[in-house]
């Protein structure tokens, strides 16, 4: 396999974006990434578009064909990749494989979602359809309910308290205020989070991500060619992708995200690295409990001790292992198909030293975790600064 580099990246502002539809957002992010890579005059071989719900939410299908048409990447091989909320990371993975295998020399990966024009009930229901149709969905299960069931298990078993969830929210809000692309740009306090409305006891509104619009994109090429285009290419050192049983109750241990464990192990093996080698992390904190559980199951902290790392400030921007410097899904926002790509964009900026006020000093290696369900499908990427 060839080494693969990210030579350009870009994203739109996340949030409630008035006056721009899904394709407008995808075009904007894609052009920024192409411009950043300086490959405007080059021929692209393939295009992967991460998106979960364009057909359902924006009444447009085959959006990869539409994107290459809008920005003239014709005749690149274009396709949409759907893997629930991990559609973005799955698209990056497919782009990586296309370059690594030698099948493609120049690849665009773009992820996007337009969600804020739909009613919250419609979004909640569409996302709930990721759960098992007869063993979960029909009983009234929503994703917040799943997160709440996991949270209570953690409280019972490991002594996690509501305050820990609030602390993750406070940290991610604070990071997002340093990120001009983030959806949520206001501070939050532990007391404020803990007095927000209860949505699924013990889960309050502030322990969950907002509904957002947005798009993000990256350009990939073989590492050996990267220096022709980029001063600071970033290498994709490894990926891991694993699944688990669909229902929460049938998992070997419902408090363990086995797909995160496996995908992380595979990514670390491929990159020939260990958790201690990582300087900065982006997790899939659609719910704040997930940042804690993922940080453990990925191998950064002992099982059941992730909340203590939050308490000690280990995961803060100036801590030993900053998690979600972008603000995470909680505060950068979660336009589902865009999220996995946006995580990679943030980490590329971090590794290039271009993350401004939220820069993790001296970051050389980064780790991203994107979730394609409620813990039953996980895509991990490990990135490394070159030179």
């Amino acid at each position: 396999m060839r080494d693969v580099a990210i030579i350009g990246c870009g994203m739109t502002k996340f949030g409630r974006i008035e006056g721009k539809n899904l394709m407008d957002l995808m075009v904007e992010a894609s052009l920024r990434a192409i411009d950043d890579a300086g490959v405007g005059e080059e021929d692209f071989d393939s295009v992967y578009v991460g998106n979960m719900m364009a057909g359902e939410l924006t009444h447009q299908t085959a959006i990869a064909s539409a994107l290459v048409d809008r920005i003239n990447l014709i005749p690149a091989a274009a396709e949409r990749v759907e893997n629930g909320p991990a559609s973005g990371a799955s698209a990056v993975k497919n782009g990586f494989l296309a370059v690594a295998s030698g099948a493609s020399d120049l690849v665009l990966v773009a992820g996007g979602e337009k969600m804020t024009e739909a009613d919250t009930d419609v979004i909640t229901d569409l996302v709930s359809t990721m759960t098992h149709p007869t063993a979960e969905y029909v009983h009234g299960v929503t994703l917040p309910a799943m997160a709440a069931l996991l949270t209570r298990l953690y409280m019972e078993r490991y002594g996690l308290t509501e305050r820990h969830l609030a602390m993750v929210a406070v940290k991610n809000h604070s990071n997002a205020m340093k990120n001009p692309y983030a959806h949520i740009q206001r501070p939050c306090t532990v007391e404020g989070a803990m007095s927000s409305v209860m949505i699924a006891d013990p889960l309050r509104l502030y322990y969950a991500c907002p509904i957002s619009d947005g798009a993000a994109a990256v350009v990939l090429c073989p590492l050996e060619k990267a220096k022709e285009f980029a001063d600071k290419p970033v290498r994709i050192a490894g990926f891991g992708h694993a699944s688990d049983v669909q229902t929460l109750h049938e998992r070997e241990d419902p408090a363990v995200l086995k797909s995160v464990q496996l995908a992380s192990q595979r990514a670390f093996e491929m990159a020939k690295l260990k958790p201690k080698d990582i300087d900065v992390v982006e997790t899939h904190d659609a719910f704040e409990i997930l940042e804690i559980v993922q940080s453990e199951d990925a191998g950064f902290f002992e099982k059941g001790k992730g909340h203590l790392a939050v308490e000690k400030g280990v995961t803060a921007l100036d801590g030993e292992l900053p998690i979600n410097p972008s603000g995470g899904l909680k505060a950068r926002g979660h336009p589902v198909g865009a999220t996995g790509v946006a995580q990679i964009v943030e980490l590329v900026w971090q590794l290039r030293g271009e993350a401004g006020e939220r820069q993790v000093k001296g970051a050389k290696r980064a780790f991203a975790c994107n979730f394609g369900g409620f813990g039953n499908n996980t895509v991990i990427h490990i990135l490394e600064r070159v030179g």
Partner: protein
Amino acid sequence: MQERLTGFKCKRCGRVTYPKHERCLSCRGTEFEEVGLGDECTLLTYTKLYALPEGIEMPPLTLGVVDFGGGVRALGQIISDDPKIGMKLRPVWGKLRKIGEEEMYGFKFEPAEKG
């Protein structure tokens, strides 16, 4: 109405799964026998859901994961205002929710000993 809550016992290795998988989660066997999960289970975790899905009118909706032992569990609605982890429950048939115009039925869980 279904008489009892059932799982699927693999004829090759004996593993019981709920819901059904076309290949056994342990041994990939493809033949199963439908078996009752039993009348008694324990509450493992629960949530009171206030942001309700379509077709359920009165918040909160209590949902929980129950344990039948031997690694066999199920998720469902819990009929109790005061759920406690570890409490004994039993499956009971009833209306779950409306989806569109259709009324959906299935097993829920109520306290084994009514107070």
